């Protein structure tokens, strides 16, 4: 089951709970087998599997709760802040440890987190991400850009806080 690890990783990033993630993966395989006749050969199988998992998540209690709060956060459609001036050294982000980055990704609103994981971790192209999430490519592009900016802002804020602590 080659997609197993990827689906489980994605489920964990969505649900942030092992039991729920396992339920989601199990449900995904059951639905995939049951609905295999609806899969059109020649279309993207990977995106199809991820879409099943993501739909299962959206219909779960955690998913409903999260997507509701994510919509509220998305209503703030204020333009992105212009890029702050940084020296190359300051933006090298060399000092970011994985734990800090993990916490920051975890705190991203779900709509940004899912697009980031599918693109940067699963290395899907924009078309595949769009198919997996059932959203237009333009939305994939803008959410990714925003996700990366948000992530960096969160990490920079944490960096400032930790300096204050020191």
């Amino acid at each position, binding site marked *: *089951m*080659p*997609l*197993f*690890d990827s689906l*489980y*990783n994605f489920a*964990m*990033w969505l649900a942030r709970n092992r039991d729920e*993630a*396992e339920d989601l*993966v*199990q449900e995904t*395989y*059951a639905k995939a*087998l049951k609905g*295999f006749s609806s899969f059109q*050969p020649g279309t993207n*199988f*990977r995106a199809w599997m991820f879409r099943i998992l993501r739909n299962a998540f959206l219909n779960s209690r955690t998913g409903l709760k999260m997507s509701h709060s994510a919509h509220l956060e998305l209503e703030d459609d204020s333009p*992105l802040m*212009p*890029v702050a*001036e*940084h020296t*190359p050294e300051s*933006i*090298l*982000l060399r000092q*970011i440890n*994985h734990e800090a*980055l*993990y916490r920051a*990704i975890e705190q991203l609103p779900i709509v940004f987190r899912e697009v*980031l*994981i599918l*693109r*940067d*971790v699963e*290395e899907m*192209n*924009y078309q595949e991400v769009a198919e997996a999430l059932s959203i237009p490519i333009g939305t994939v*592009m*803008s959410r*990714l*850009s925003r996700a*990366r900016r948000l*992530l*960096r802002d969160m990490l920079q804020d944490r960096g400032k806080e930790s300096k204050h602590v020191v």
Partner: protein
Amino acid sequence: MSCERWEEKISAYIDSEVPADEIDALDAHLQSCAHCATEAFAQLKMKQLVSNTGKRYLPSREFREKVRRKTFGRAPARVAWRWWPAAALAVAMLIAIFIGIDYRRALIESDRKLAEIADLHVTALASAAPVDVVSSDRHTVKPWFEGRIPFSFNLPELQNTQFILLGGRVTYVNQLPGAHLLYQIRKHRISVYIFQDRPELGLPHTDGKVINTKSFHLESWADAGLRYYVIGDVGSEDLESLCHLLRSAARS
């Protein structure tokens, strides 16, 4: 076009998803605007970090076995004989898809590793100082590497060619030091990376074939204990002629 318009495109740029008709203009902008080049570099770095950090969760062996058993292992108690051909066909299709995915993943893995060369190239171009030794003279650039990397190499004579040597610097892949030479032809810049041909390098080579990675042309080969990677946004003919010059110099 102002920087604000380009900033929206930088995220797509580092994903190699900028439409073909905009890529040249964006390339040109990044070469002339330190602000956007810095932004591209920062986003690229962030993408690499997310890629590593995001592969965090692995399912337990028990859970894997449980799903495998439920999905493939348990036959229905009584299956009517007339359904066997359809069931066999469905299983065969699933197996074929999974094998296809495995094969595709192997190709993707190889592409992903070669994409590291593209990342090095982009990072160098985004840098305000892409080379540490600035010289078009190979007799200046080559000796500069002495004592900095644990091997030596030959550089080609560029007289009567359109190529210009811009300089070089030391680079690292998987903690192995290598030489990064930067060449220019017309307005395009081409990176040449030379490493010792060792398994720890962890990079495949294309056996002298030109491939496309992240919209760049890339050719690589192994020769006399060294591994060469040549990458740039030039046409494949220009890239191949620089590779030919490098191969000839290596054998001289």
